């Protein structure tokens, strides 16, 4: 199931030098009374499948919202591709076009069709006039249809979103994110409520896109097993703190309490172990 995304030494060095997400002592709160996240340090390399697991209310969704600027930290710094996530930051706003975000609630427009919901992912590429009158270029429509058939929704393009099953809605949200041609994918428990078969189908889809597009996926999971199976790194959040970060390579699990290790170090350790 797992693939190492680095095969040649050259791509190896390229990846290890690219920290796509860095969080430094990040604290955040919804109200002044308590912190939802307390002193989070996270460092994610480009191309990683990074899993976040933890109990309900531990702060997983909050962590994702910080990464795409929907929330700002009350303390600490966050850099996404060397930019500070903030909707008022012009440079970051351009980056948002390439950050696919699938919220826990999916956020589909229920009165629009499956195809229209998917095409929303291409809105940043569409001109003012065209977007007012819903005039999408033919190649975007073909692209959307291709993605929809990849996620198993071929033939359902004209269905209204509210007429879909829970699993189908998830696939539309995934298609919308893919339509953005993302470099980063933030997915909040998109497979948690699905049966094992469908969950794996969707995870394989994302793993496949990762291989093709060198996508960095940060995924919140409820199921540790699924996280271990697909992720390169797994962070465990408890009551707003990162209590554990695990590097996973192949079948080997290496346990890193602080999570301050780079992929290079993990790789070195992995190759050390395989030599034995």
């Amino acid at each position, binding site marked *: 199931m797992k693939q190492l995304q680095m095969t040649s030494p050259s791509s190896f060095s390229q990846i290890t030098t690219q920290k796509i997400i860095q969080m430094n002592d990040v604290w955040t709160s919804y109200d002044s009374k308590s912190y939802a996240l307390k002193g989070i340090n996270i460092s994610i390399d480009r191309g990683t499948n990074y899993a976040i697991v933890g109990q309900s209310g531990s702060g997983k969704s909050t962590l994702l919202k910080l990464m795409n600027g929907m929330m700002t930290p009350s303390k600490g710094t966050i850099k996404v591709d060397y930019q500070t996530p903030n909707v008022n930051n012009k440079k970051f706003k351009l980056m948002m076009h390439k950050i696919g975000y699938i919220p826990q609630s999916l956020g589909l427009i229920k009165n629009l069709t499956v195809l229209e919901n998917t095409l929303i992912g291409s809105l940043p590429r569409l001109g003012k006039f065209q977007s007012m009158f819903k005039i999408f270029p033919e190649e975007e429509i073909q692209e959307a249809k291709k993605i929809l058939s990849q996620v198993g929704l071929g033939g359902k393009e004209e269905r209204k979103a509210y007429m879909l099953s829970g699993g189908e809605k998830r696939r539309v*949200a995934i298609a919308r994110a893919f339509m953005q041609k993302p470099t980063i994918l933030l997915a909040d428990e998109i497979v948690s409520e699905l049966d094992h078969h469908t969950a794996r189908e969707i995870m394989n889809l994302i793993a496949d896109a990762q291989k093709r597009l060198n996508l960095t996926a940060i995924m919140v999971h409820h199921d540790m097993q699924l996280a271990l199976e697909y992720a390169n790194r797994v962070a465990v959040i408890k009551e707003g703190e990162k209590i554990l970060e695990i590097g996973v390579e192949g079948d080997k699990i290496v346990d890193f309490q602080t999570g301050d290790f780079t992929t290079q170090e993990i790789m070195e350790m992995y190759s050390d172990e395989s030599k034995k």
Partner: protein
Amino acid sequence: MNQRNNLVIGIIIALVVAASYNVDANPIDFFEGLPNLAIVAEEMTQVDAELFGTAFLSMFETIQMAFIGTIVGVAISLPLSMFAARNLNSKFVYAPVRAILAAVRTFPSILWAILFVIMVGLGPFAGVLAIIMYTVGFVAKLQYETIETIDADPMDAVSSIGVSKWQLIRYVVIPESAPHLLSQMLYMFDYNVRQTSILGLVGAGGIGFYIINYIKFFEYGKAAVFMIVVLVTVLIIDWISLKIRDKYIVKSQHGMEVTAK
């Protein structure tokens, strides 16, 4: 029922009695006046059938006035409501727009009609303008309240893509509130037909002009013809809008949904 509720009800009854005294509302006058109504009712039975043609024509004029007023009014109120919605704008935008809308709403349509009769003269055009103003004030409020209750999840999900505000309005706000907007429009048309029927009282066109004139000259039988036409028309419009609602606004597990494009 506890002690406090009884006290509240007692106070309300006392207030109603006191207010009735102040405005000379005497129930005895009402019952003594009933025979007068009987006279009117009897005269109304002498329906002047020849007038039905005129009645239908003036009713048709009334419907057209209400139609233009509703469509133009809604077309103006839609963009205004986008500026008045708190979840789409900063305080500096929504506060003044809301203040203007509140000012527009303080005038009942009949006052707008008087104003426009002075401005553009007697006739249906003054009535159309009055209906537009009333519709703008009223529908814009309904619309911005609808927009403010839109689910935050799709708004967040789509704005996290970094789309422009106009794209957000086009692809989230309008589709999410469309069923409500359609239903508000139907309601407003319905209401405007009734309103336009009385605008004739101040000379702003429509069927009300005939009704008030025949009543002035005590020709209740003739007035009755026009009133019957209004009644039947309002019932028919009620029925049609019910059919439209059933067809295009279906209930699903998420509440109101629109199935039209």
